[in-house]
């Protein structure tokens, strides 16, 4: 336009950008252009403004920042000419969004343009307002828009109607103002106005109950008539799509009838005929026709019961489902999910077809079909459906196996008619897709196996066979080695054969081979290796004849790079080698795991920082049943008192090897050990990453110090405030300690006499007090163990108590589960252990920010605070 302008034309800029061979080159061109545009903006020359903005829009589309051009949009909008306004509004919609403050500046220009004499300028303003207006602008400009709905030109009326839909979405309070205007639009003949009018009416009905009542009373019949007219209308080339007159209008009318008919039998009654007509007469060989049928089925399913119509709808969906077009099948699967709600039987008839869709090459269809299948499962068809799905699991794409196996597992768990079937199906899933299975699924399997005592032999043999073939499926291997460890003797001796089984010959060596294989395979992860190590220990007692070989395998782990593995290997070796007399009772079979407790815990699937745990020190008759999965390998037996060891459920490996001291103490002729002994031993033998705070260190200290009594109480106090203060020194405890005596590192006195830090009150509000007490594990000055005690000062009980803490980067924080998530009223306490590692020990002191959430009388309470008063030197 301006021949003297120094800048390039838009077309030239696009060309030079397109000519760029590399991204760097493109960036260079864009940078240069942007610099020119900025310079030109600074000169404030109105001639180039138009072109600059066009260029900026192109640059914006390429993903470069263009915020500096926002004000140019406003200037263009404010200029008088139509071309400037047109590009200005386009830029406004493209470069800005409703959350930007700049947008507020345009309200005034918009108001002027809405009152402009040129209808196209009014159209531009309405379009911009409809696309990006914020709630504030909607309030400011609603009267203008409302007036424009009655404008003489239909082009403006339709834009005003859609603009109004945005306004009432943003500010639902304004809905009432638009009811009358909207109803006047419904009588229009102009399709554009009619479509937008119906849309506005739909919007108002979904937002405002009064509007719904109004339109239901006044407009239902009119809308039905409009739909009838349009359905029966002769060929109109202007609106024809594949032989159908204006499918867009059809769809909108069906949509609004849906809200009018929903929950109102009279209105539903009125529309029955026309819906039946649409459902039967619409051509279904074109997409446009199918789009209308889709909408019609939706409406039929939403309005009040007219069963004959529903039969029609289900039939349409059946036809959709057998369509060869993937789009139509996808849509059918989606809609059948809704149809299940009122006609399960009809959907069940299509089960075979739906199952075929699960195997479709198209991921979108597979996903829908799988969702649908899982809704179709019931007690009667579960076996058949599961078989189909598992068969498909073998050949499905790798990336679909995760979804598929998760669904199969949930179906099997939910509808399993008997245990043996459940175990069989789970073994199949684990064999095919074991690496995709989530932890809670195989944990659950172990709980079920443990409970099915008559199937132990069968299961361990089946697992043995499976693991030989599918040794790469991690979770299968885990379950297999757990079972072999527990029931290895049943495997070798073919105990408990079921009629359906073929006898197999497995030698003791074969069984150990499987476990050895798992522990030596380089891609086994820590959990698997740890489980294998425990299994070996157990087998050493089950198969005394080859315990030398087992010992060798265990010893190899002394060289493991994982500290835990190393340490356990040494300890287990010592058990195998030097303590034959107590070994068999030490590694007795696990007691039955309690399903009910496991299920509760699984359902809760609490975050790691919250927990339902640690019962008070009162001994519970069977510790195991209180904390089933957690103490997966706990050897406690029913006749001996044992409290649950620290049981968080956060990670069952934590207590993988907790050993009930009771059995050994009985053997060594002493009185049953107090529960404290259990905790101690638990610590000594525990394997696993997230073990309780002091776990390994304190346990080792204990072993190495002479004064057993003092030490054990110290460690226990640190471990759990609920432990009884009086810890009996029993012969058995002593016995267990010297079990491992030779192995402990050099004695360290610090555990008992380390520098003392005064406890602090970390936080106090009117309802809650938090106290911290500190201890340092020996040999690691960077780490501080903090025991937090939460005290309820209010007269109400706190439930769902969660403590969260955050620390700066130089600190590392580990939260153990709290002792409970409920704080009884007036002085009730909960404790929680924290472990803080200060990487800047000696330079910076601890600091922590925390948030506490709980419920009082059903109300959520959130308290936050920062803790700065940590003692120095932590």
């Amino acid at each position, binding site marked *: 336009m301006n021949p003297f302008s120094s800048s390039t034309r838009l077309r030239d800029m696009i060309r030079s950008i397109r000519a760029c061979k590399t991204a760097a080159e493109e960036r260079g061109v864009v940078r240069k252009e942007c610099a020119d545009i900025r310079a030109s903006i600074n000169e404030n020359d109105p001639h180039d403004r138009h072109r600059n903005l066009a260029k900026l829009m192109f640059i914006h589309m390429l993903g470069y920042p263009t915020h500096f051009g926002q004000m140019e949009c406003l200037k263009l909008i404010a200029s008088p000419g139509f071309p400037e306004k047109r590009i200005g509004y386009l830029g406004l919609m493209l470069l800005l969004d409703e959350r930007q403050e700049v947008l507020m500046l345009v309200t005034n220009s918009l108001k002027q343009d809405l009152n402009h004499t040129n209808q196209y300028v009014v159209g531009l303003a309405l379009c911009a307002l409809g696309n990006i207006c914020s709630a504030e602008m909607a309030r400011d400009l609603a009267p203008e828009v409302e007036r424009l709905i009655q404008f003489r030109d239909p082009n403006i009326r339709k834009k005003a109607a859609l603009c109004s*839909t945005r306004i009432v979405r943003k500010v639902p309070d304004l809905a009432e103002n638009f009811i009358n205007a909207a109803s006047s639009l419904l009588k229009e003949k102009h399709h554009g106005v009619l479509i937008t009018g119906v849309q506005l009416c739909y919007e108002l009905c979904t937002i405002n109950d009064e509007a719904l009542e109004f339109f239901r009373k006044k407009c239902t019949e009119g809308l039905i008539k409009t739909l009838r007219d349009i359905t029966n209308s002769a060929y109109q080339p202007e609106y024809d799509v594949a032989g159908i007159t204006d499918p*867009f209008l059809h769809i909108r009318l069906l949509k609004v009838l849906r809200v009018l008919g929903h929950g109102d039998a009279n209105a539903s009654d009125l529309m029955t005929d026309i819906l039946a007509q649409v459902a039967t007469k619409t051509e279904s060989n074109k997409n446009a026709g199918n789009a209308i049928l889709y*909408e019609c089925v939706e409406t039929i399913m939403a309005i009040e019961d007219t069963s004959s119509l529903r039969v029609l709808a289900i039939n349409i969906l059946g036809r959709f489902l057998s369509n060869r077009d993937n*789009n139509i099948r996808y849509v059918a699967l989606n809609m059948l999910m809704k149809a299940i709600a009122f006609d399960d039987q009809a959907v069940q008839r299509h089960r075979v077809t739906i199952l075929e869709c699960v195997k479709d090459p198209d991921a*979108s269809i597979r996903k829908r079909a799988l969702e649908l299948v899982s809704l179709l499962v019931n007690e009667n068809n579960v076996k058949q459906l599961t078989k189909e799905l598992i068969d498909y699991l073998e050949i499905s794409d790798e990336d679909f196996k995760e979804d598929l196996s998760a669904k199969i597992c949930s179906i099997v768990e939910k509808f399993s008619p008997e245990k043996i079937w459940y175990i069989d199906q789970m073994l199949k899933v684990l064999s095919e897709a074991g690496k995709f299975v989530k932890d809670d699924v195989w944990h659950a399997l172990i709980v079920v196996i443990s409970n099915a005592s008559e199937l132990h032999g069968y299961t361990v043999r089946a697992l043995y066979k499976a693991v030989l073939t599918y040794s790469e499926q991690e979770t299968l291997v885990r379950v297999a080695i757990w079972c072999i460890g527990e029931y290895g003797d049943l495997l070798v001796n073919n105990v408990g054969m079921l009629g359906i089984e073929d006898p197999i010959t497995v030698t003791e060596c074969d069984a150990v081979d499987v476990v050895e294989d798992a522990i030596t395979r380089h891609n086994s992860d820590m959990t698997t290796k740890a489980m294998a190590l425990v299994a070996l220990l157990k087998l050493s007692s089950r198969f005394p004849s080859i315990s030398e070989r087992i010992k060798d395998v265990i010893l190899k782990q002394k060289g493991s790079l994982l500290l835990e593995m190393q340490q356990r290997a040494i300890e287990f070796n010592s058990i195998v080698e030097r303590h034959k007399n107590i070994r068999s009772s030490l590694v007795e079979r696990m007691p039955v795991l309690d399903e009910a407790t496991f299920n509760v815990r699984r359902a809760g699937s609490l975050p790691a920082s919250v927990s339902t745990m640690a019962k008070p020190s009162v001994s519970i008759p069977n510790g195991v049943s209180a904390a089933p999965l957690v103490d997966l390998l706990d050897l406690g037996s029913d006749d001996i008192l044992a409290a649950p060891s620290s049981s968080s459920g956060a990670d069952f490996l934590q207590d993988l090897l907790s050993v009930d001291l009771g059995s050994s103490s009985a053997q060594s002729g002493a009185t049953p050990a107090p529960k404290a002994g259990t905790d101690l031993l638990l610590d000594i033998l525990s394997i696993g990453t997230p073990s309780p705070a002091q776990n390994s260190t304190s346990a080792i200290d204990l072993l190495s110090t002479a004064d057993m009594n003092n030490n054990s109480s110290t460690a226990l106090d640190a471990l759990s405030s609920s432990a009884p203060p009086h810890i009996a020194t029993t012969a058995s405890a002593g016995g267990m300690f010297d079990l491992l005596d030779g192995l402990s590192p050099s004695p360290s006195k610090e555990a008992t006499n380390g520098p003392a830090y005064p406890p602090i009150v970390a936080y106090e509000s009117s309802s809650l007090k938090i106290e911290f007490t500190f201890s340092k594990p020996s040999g690691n000055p960077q780490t501080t163990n903090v025991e937090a005690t939460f005290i309820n000062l209010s007269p109400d009980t706190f439930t769902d108590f969660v403590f969260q803490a955050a620390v700066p980067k130089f600190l590392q924080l580990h939260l153990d589960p709290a002792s409970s998530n409920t704080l009884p009223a007036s002085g009730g306490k909960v404790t929680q252990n924290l472990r803080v590692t200060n990487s800047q020990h000696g330079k910076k002191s601890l600091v922590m920010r925390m948030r506490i959430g709980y419920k009082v009388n059903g109300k959520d309470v959130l308290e936050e605070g920062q803790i700065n008063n940590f003692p120095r030197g932590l």
Partner: protein
Amino acid sequence: MSFDPMDRLMSLCVPSLNLRMHRSLIDSLEIQSCYLLSEHSCLASGFGSIHFVLLVSRQGKVRLTKWYSPYTQKERSKVIRELSGVILNRGPKLCNFVEWRGYKVVYKRYASLYFCMCIDAEDNELEVLEIIHHYVEILDRYFGSVCELDLIFNFHKAYYILDELLIAGEIQESSKKTVARIISAQDEMVEAAKEEAGSISYIIAQAS
């Protein structure tokens, strides 16, 4: 099969694409669409309308974006990146819907360009396919056998047409003729203003 930006969007012939011969005009175009669904969504709450429109070339270049729900610039580029990754990688015979972040994206391919629209999970996907096709037909009439290059150099025109078709994510006009008429009326106004400006600067130039 490679597509050039010069290819006419509406002209994909049936045989070359190995599609069944008896398909209609709409079906004869190579079509793929996607639904996208998500768990944690940065998208605005849905009102049953189109949340955004996206035109992406086969090479992943953005040719047009229109946002009807509020997104920050950051979210916008993230959405574009994610979606073009999903959609461009889908095979040719799959359905035209992709589930993404709890939404559905309906897409359809015309020659070298993918037209994508994002809607709520419960909306009518088939209708959106019609809207896309409606838009392409209007573009085709306006440019006369539209191709990607037309939309690159005249991107603003593509936006003007879209603005006559959709407002607030809802369709405003079902007649292609009406849209064409309104657009050409506005184009004429721009031309008239240009001429006027031209003649004025000519007079000024003469006078000085």
